[in-house]
């Protein structure tokens, strides 16, 4: 649910990074945070456990710039990836405008990817959304590791709808901004259809 404020001339949109535990959702946000101008970003908030596993969510507000005199702001959220945080994960999806699914490219994590994607569909349905109708981008993360599955295979498994996908290495940056740019563009294009 985007928030269009004619009074302060602002448009706020919410993007959620979803994916299995340890796939790199928080790392994506950390990289965006690191590489963004200080005047464009707010604080990166992480509600995490002592071992740096996301407990509830990470949050990063970004100001992208102006369109027709309206300030465009994106609020980036991650969900806790671990299976047993299911209840909190569902809450973060409330009011989402666009979803990034971060998949772990390591072969042994394929099952976790599939499980997380199913979980995403179910949780979105519970909130009254349909993944096939939402702005949606996929990122195949950790491409720098030796034991990764070929992108073709991952696409077959995780991206049957053939939505835009990017190869990423969130730790060092490749693919991070490409992914963000793509989802932001989809969200704005979707808004354009409705207003």
């Amino acid at each position, binding site marked *: *649910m*985007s*928030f*269009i*404020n*004619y*009074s*302060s*001339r602002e*448009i*706020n949109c*919410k993007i959620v990074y979803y994916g299995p535990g340890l796939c790199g959702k928080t790392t994506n946000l950390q990289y965006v945070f690191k590489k963004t101008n200080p005047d464009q970003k*707010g*604080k990166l*908030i992480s*509600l995490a456990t002592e071992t740096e596993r996301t407990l*509830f*969510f990470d*949050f990063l*507000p970004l100001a*992208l*710039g102006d*369109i*027709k*005199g*309206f300030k*465009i702001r994106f*609020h980036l959220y991650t969900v806790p990836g671990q299976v047993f945080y299911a*209840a*909190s994960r*569902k*809450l*973060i999806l*409330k*009011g989402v*405008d666009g979803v990034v699914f971060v998949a772990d490219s390591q072969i042994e994590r394929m099952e976790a990817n599939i499980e997380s994607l199913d979980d995403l569909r179910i949780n979105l349905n519970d909130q*009254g*959304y349909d993944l096939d109708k939402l702005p949606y981008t996929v990122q195949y993360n950790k491409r720098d590791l030796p034991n990764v599955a070929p992108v073709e295979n991952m696409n077959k498994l995780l991206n049957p709808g053939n939505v835009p996908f990017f190869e990423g290495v969130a730790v060092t940056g490749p693919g991070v*901004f490409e992914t963000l*740019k793509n989802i*932001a*563009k989809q969200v*704005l*294009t*979707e*808004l*354009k*259809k*409705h*207003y």
Partner: protein
Amino acid sequence: MSSSDLVMYEEEFRKIDEELQKLHQQTNAMVVFLVDKNGQLIASAGETRDIDTTSLASLTAGNIAATGGIARLLGEKEFTILFHEGEKDNIHISLIGQRVILVVIFDKRSSLGLVRLRVKKASEALVTIFNDIASKSEQEKTEGKLDESPFAEISDEDIDNLFR
């Protein structure tokens, strides 16, 4: 896109702002905020310069969402009031009309009783304003004419320019 997109117009914003200013004064609070359930800050009154309002809005919404989750587990519809007491400052959070969250931060110059009383009054006024916003936005949507829509002439180039 969800049909519940929140569109705020000048007129309603002014009314909301008035209500918040009034509440701020009457409660003798430090700051008063209004946040939507998804964590977007709508309006505020009081001294906000030293506060990271964006983060505060997002965390408050997370707080309400988590509490709502607990409520449903217990078979309650919602817990509408949260109160956190600190050494110096206190925070009173209340859910208004299932839609927005009113946050009052206060210290010993005010009291919980006063805040509760005034918040209740302000809530009623705010519910009416938000009902107006909802029906206005619904009406304009069906008639298909939003005044000076920022998206009317937006081009792919405009969107690309955001990322230069």
